[in-house]
């Protein structure tokens, strides 16, 4: 059995997800620059086990998603890129965390593979939830759109600030 260093599998997967995000979001010059810097930080942080670098890289990739959206990228493309960024962020930080918390010789391949698959499944499910409303054709009333926005902001704030159960 080939010995794989702790966190290496997760680091490779995170870098792969970062490449997917870069390809999907890099539709304009600004998005490409953000995405390239972000991808570099993500890859370096994942491989070297630096969680802060992973987060910084993913922040750059998120900037690329936003810039790509402003440059005219499609909804599915942007949501896919966003989901890929979340996967890269989560799995990349796991790679760094495993290197910090477990012994170098520990066998973690199964954990890393399961975790990568689990995060991907959760992110794809969330992407599905996010994209589904855009597939529906409805007549948008200004009041309805306003109420929807207020509801979205309230929901986001509540989810972020709700106390622990």
């Amino acid at each position, binding site marked *: 059995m080939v010995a794989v260093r*702790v966190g290496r599998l997760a680091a490779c997967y995170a870098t792969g997800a970062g490449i997917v995000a870069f390809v999907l979001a890099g539709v304009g010059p600004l998005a490409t620059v953000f995405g390239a810097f972000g991808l570099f930080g993500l890859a370096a942080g994942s491989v070297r086990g630096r969680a802060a670098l992973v*987060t910084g890289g993913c922040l750059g990739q*998120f900037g690329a*998603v*936003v810039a790509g*959206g*402003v440059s005219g*990228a*499609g*909804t599915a*493309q*942007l*949501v896919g890129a*966003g*989901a890929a960024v*979340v996967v890269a962020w*989560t799995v990349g*930080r*796991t790679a760094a965390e*495993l290197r910090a*918390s*477990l*012994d*170098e*010789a*520990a*066998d*973690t391949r*199964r*954990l*890393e593979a*399961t*975790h990568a*698959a*689990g*995060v991907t*499944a*959760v*992110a794809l*499910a*969330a*992407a599905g*939830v*996010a*994209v589904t*409303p*855009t597939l529906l054709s409805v007549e948008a009333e200004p009041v309805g759109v306003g109420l929807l*926005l207020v509801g*979205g*902001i309230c*929901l*986001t*704030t509540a*989810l*972020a600030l*709700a106390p*622990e159960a």
Partner: protein
Amino acid sequence: MTGTVQRTERWRGLSAAALLAGALGLLTWTPALLPVAALAVALLAYGRVVAPPDGTLALTRTVSEPEPDPGEEVTVRLAVENVGDRTIPELRLVDGVPPALGVVDGAPSLGTSLRPGGTARLSYSVEAASGAHEFQPATALLRDAAGVIERRAEVEADDATDVGEPPGLNDGQRLPLRAANARFAGRQTVDGSGSGLTFRTIREYRRGDPLSRVDWRRRARTGELATVEFHPERSLPVVLVVDTRSVAAVAPTPEGETAVERSLSGADALFGGLSADDHRVGVATMGPGRAWLPPGRGRAHEQRARELFARSVEQGPDGEDDDVAGAGADAGREWLRERLPATAEVIVLTPAVDDAAVTLIEGLAALGRPVSVVSPNPTVENTAGRTLARFERRDRLADVRASGVPVVELGPDERIERAFATAGWSR
């Protein structure tokens, strides 16, 4: 499974990203960014509703050699089985290796996922140290598939696993003691006359002398009554003070025995020898959590001493020291003074790697107790800093000797019996 549940805060900042994407989508009139915000909200919702992972783990630990010699390599095999009915997507397990045992091969940790009935195994090797060491429960960390919520628990092995055997106390090192002022009958010959085993003189019979000490052969031969006198033999209360502070847990090489382990081995040998000589031996440790075993004799007492030595080795240098430095040295001396019997002789086992140890020794000598020092040498001379440490230790021991306290030094690889013989302490 019980344990503590907490959120990992892995997606901290996701809510800000959601609001930012939504706001930029509105400001730049980019509808495509609103689903990106919705994606973040959906992930936040997942983080809120996901249940903490649950599972029941059964841990089996085996060792290749339960009673190894110090320095011998022992293979530890660990099997963890998910005996619950739910899959554990993410399991991190760290075995509770006793601090005194160094891992020399493999890793005592594992990361895996386990289906119901699934088993994960790991194997690693440790280097045995003197004394008995009990493995602690393994620490298990269970997380959901995305790793946003976790449960931390300790898992006990099916059977308590011990490595090593308690120190044997019967074949210890004998040595002559400094004091001869004991008040309890025993085998240490002292000046004066009385009952005992060593012949001293024959004197004229006096009324009241016990019949067992009348020299009946002389009576038969000469018709005179005479009484045989012997040197009285008394046992001494002896207290072994062992320096088990973290500062004393130093070794000449990373793989070598620490001075604390060598001090405890020395104390173990002395305890056995003194007990064999019928002395009443007590033990005090000056490390994390001071321990006191008053002088005594008998199997139960030896068992308590054995457990104390093993526990001290196992505790290792971790933990809060009852500092013996500065004001702490006075506190340590006071703590000992309150417990030391008035006639006790004290043998301090310390590497003397700091001034606090010297302060303690001199403080004990100032109390009027006969004090001796056994000092394992943990220093080497391969760098300038280590050479300096060696010189400083040598100066400290010179100060101790100058105050009239005899010191026996144990070289890095020297056996305690040889060191005592060299110093003329052996009987």
